[in-house]
């Protein structure tokens, strides 16, 4: 209990001191605290009116379950306009002013969409940037972008929470999804089927060529090591001289996506258009 009080106090202090004038809460959010009769902002804010009450409640219940299981804050915000702000700045302002995130570091993830600009943004904070690294945010954004584009917002938000759950579980197991530990779904497997077949074909050709090579055993022997007189080998001089070094530098491959990632302060963003 004592610890919880300390964490809450620290979180409140952080909220107070990290609030900058440029990051003031955009308009229209105060209504939500009034609506909920609480100082806490709800974890789903639908300023654009995209969700029914039942859908909104369902999403909030699912988020509460995630918060409880992983001690990790998740929020979904749908706004009708960004009021001329950049989507990342808008997201940061919402995340900070609404005090989203859990614990002293405010570990959390905010998914925000704006209908007017057709922007989406995933804002990861503290531990969020570990569990949802550049790869993770781009992957999730890429997976739900078609649903957003099709106007199926409730389904998009629900899918977002599905992926959040999967990615948090993987991170909790010790190795978050990344380019080295990629997340694959059934559709990915179909997509990479031609690649799998091409690689298999190359392996099959190598195996068959080795079999063919073994059909001929009459091959010259370039060495005559069997005929070295026993005990005749004597090393009388040995010198290993370092000459020089060279360093090759190649750009690491990055997956192509319509979205872009960046980090500002302790926020990490991936944004895109739908």
């Amino acid at each position, binding site marked *: 209990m004592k610890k919880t009080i300390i964490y809450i106090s620290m979180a409140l202090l952080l909220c107070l001191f990290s609030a900058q004038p440029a990051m003031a809460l955009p308009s229209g959010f105060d209504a939500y605290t009034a609506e909920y009769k609480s100082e806490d902002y709800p974890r789903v804010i639908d300023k654009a009116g995209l969700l029914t009450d039942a859908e909104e409640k369902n999403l909030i219940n699912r988020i509460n379950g995630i918060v409880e299981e992983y001690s990790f804050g998740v929020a979904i915000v749908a706004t009708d306009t960004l009021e001329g702000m950049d989507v990342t700045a808008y997201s940061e302002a919402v995340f900070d002013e609404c005090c989203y995130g859990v614990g002293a570091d405010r570990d959390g993830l905010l998914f925000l969409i704006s209908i007017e600009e057709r922007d989406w943004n995933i804002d990861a904070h503290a531990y969020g940037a570990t569990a949802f690294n550049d790869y993770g945010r781009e992957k999730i954004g890429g997976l739900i972008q078609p649903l957003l584009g099709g106007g199926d917002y409730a389904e998009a938000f629900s899918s977002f929470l599905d992926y959040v759950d999967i990615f948090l579980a993987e991170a909790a197991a010790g190795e978050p999804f990344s380019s080295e530990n990629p997340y*694959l*779904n*059934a559709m*990915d*497997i179909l997509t990479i*089927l031609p690649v*799998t*077949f091409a*690689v*298999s*074909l190359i*392996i*099959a*050709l190598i*195996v*068959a060529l080795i*079999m*063919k090579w*073994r*059909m*001929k*055993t*009459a*091959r*010259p*022997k*370039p*060495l*005559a*090591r*069997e*005929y*070295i*007189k026993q005990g*005749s*080998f*004597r*090393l*009388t*001089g*040995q*010198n*290993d*001289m*370092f*000459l*020089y*070094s*060279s*360093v*090759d*530098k*190649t*750009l*690491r491959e990055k997956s192509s996506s319509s979205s872009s990632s960046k980090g500002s302060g302790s926020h990490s963003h991936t944004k895109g258009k739908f």
Partner: protein
Amino acid sequence: MNVLEYKCSNCGGAITFSSASQQMTCGHCDASFDPEALRRYDEEMRNPQEESYGWNEYDGEAMNSGELSGMRAYSCPSCGGEIVGDKNTVATSCPYCGNPAILQGKLSGMLRPDCLIPFMLDKAAAKQALTKHLKGKPLLPKLFKTQNRLDSITGIYVPFWLFGCDTHARIRYRATRTKSWSDSKYNYTRTDYYQLIREGDVGFANVPVDGSQKMDDAYMEAIEPFDYNQLTGFQSAYLAGYLADKYDVDAEQSKSRANERVKRSTEAVFASTAAGYTTCVPESTNIQFSNGSVQYALMPVWMLNTKYKDKMYTFAMNGQTGRLVGELPVSWGKFWAWVAGISVGLTAVVSVLLLLAVLA
């Protein structure tokens, strides 16, 4: 005034001394060199030594008339092979090409071998070895196995030159060590280049080189090694029941192959002392041969010939150790069936495993 110019051993560009790093640096590829290492490298490159091969001349002894009178000579009108056998052994087919129309000729001018290894394995063992050789060959045409009928099987003493020598070697290797790492933007590979010098002695005994032109050198090297503990002095009595070939590649002509094998083996033996490098390639080899000796020997070989689809397939078996080599026909239908089977099977297995991982 002479200006001493060092060349970069990485790219060949001119290198100059950098007062800032106290190193010799290349303006073209940015490689940097320790001046002392460069001086020693330069010294090493300026002192090339000539190789010398100290082989003795082979001075053979002709067979006496008594030995010659007990032998018969045969020649093959198809491939030109010439073989000999004792007077009680009848050659019925050419061991090289399987041609059954072999002609008896006149034997003359045959050198007496210094030594031979007698046949230790008989015809039945050769047939058994071939049957075993055909097993576990998935690309072998079914008909080759089921309709396999040996056209000829002949035990023949093949002439070999056995070279022995002591060598003193000084070998320069170019070696590399690589290390890779990454940061968020780039993958890096650092390659360190070394010059290795190895010097020492190694001796060789009885390196065999096939002395028959008709006999495929690849076959004869592939059935090696022979066990020289059973090497014995030549007696014409050993030829009874077998054929023998006269050498038609003399010791002088065979030396180049012996030199090549001794040289490559020496490089490999000294390279095995250079552990911990990613690559190690001989850059220059200087080998001085001494105490070179040459012996003329006969080695026991079973030659097996079988015809399939109008093509003769030849197998050779070491008549002492039983090692059998040859070339088998390939069924291209089976080849592509294996390619299709493996690729489809692998694709299915990988896809199912990925699917299970996703659904888990």
